[in-house]
């Protein structure tokens, strides 16, 4: 399944794009997705345990990603 991943702020800058697309096995989890992103050259920008949002809610590592989910990598937040 092809999953677009939204990128923001420092991550968008590191990847040079506002989103990337990965092809994941059916049943893939947030951890599987992070392993793939970390293996990319620009993945060096990620901290050891990056935040991931699925459908605009923070996700846990074992959470499965379904086709059509809105997935985003969330850099350390700095509002306020």
């Amino acid at each position, binding site marked *: 399944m092809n999953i677009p991943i939204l990128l923001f702020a420092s991550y968008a800058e590191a990847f040079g794009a506002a989103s990337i697309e990965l092809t994941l096995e059916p049943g893939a989890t947030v951890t599987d997705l992070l392993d793939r992103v970390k293996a990319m050259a620009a993945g060096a920008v990620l901290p050891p345990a990056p935040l991931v949002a699925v459908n605009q809610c923070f996700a846990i590592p074992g959470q499965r990603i379904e086709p059509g989910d809105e997935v985003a990598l969330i*850099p350390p*937040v700095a509002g*306020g």
Partner: protein
Amino acid sequence: MRTALVTRPINASALLAEVTSPACGATSLFLGTVRDMHDGRPVTGMEYTAYEAMAASELERIGAEAVARFDSPALVVEHRIGALGIGDVSVAIAVAHAHRAAALDATRYVIEALKQRVPIWKREHYADGTREWVDPTRPRAGAAS
């Protein structure tokens, strides 16, 4: 309760007027403003960006939590995104309640949760022309722990 991401200047007086009522004996206002210095480096401005859809819904969840936890105060939160100058208000939280404890506690709850959970980022512009994304999880060189 109302929460919003805005691109226009925040009007603190309007927020106060929105929450205050004759039933409220206490009104609390928190303003976050852009500082002219960060870890000893002169700052000339700040650029706020957000994952807008999620930031709006997360802000609304936090507002609802504060209303539920602190005895249903009247509460309004606005966070500004875009280019801000020194002294500009980036976030405002206005809370009114019959009593001060609920108003103050709800205000504190919202700003602390916002800083932990709302997907908003800021890039500081320095006097020397450089720019940097602020990462609160990474202590800077020379910064006090």
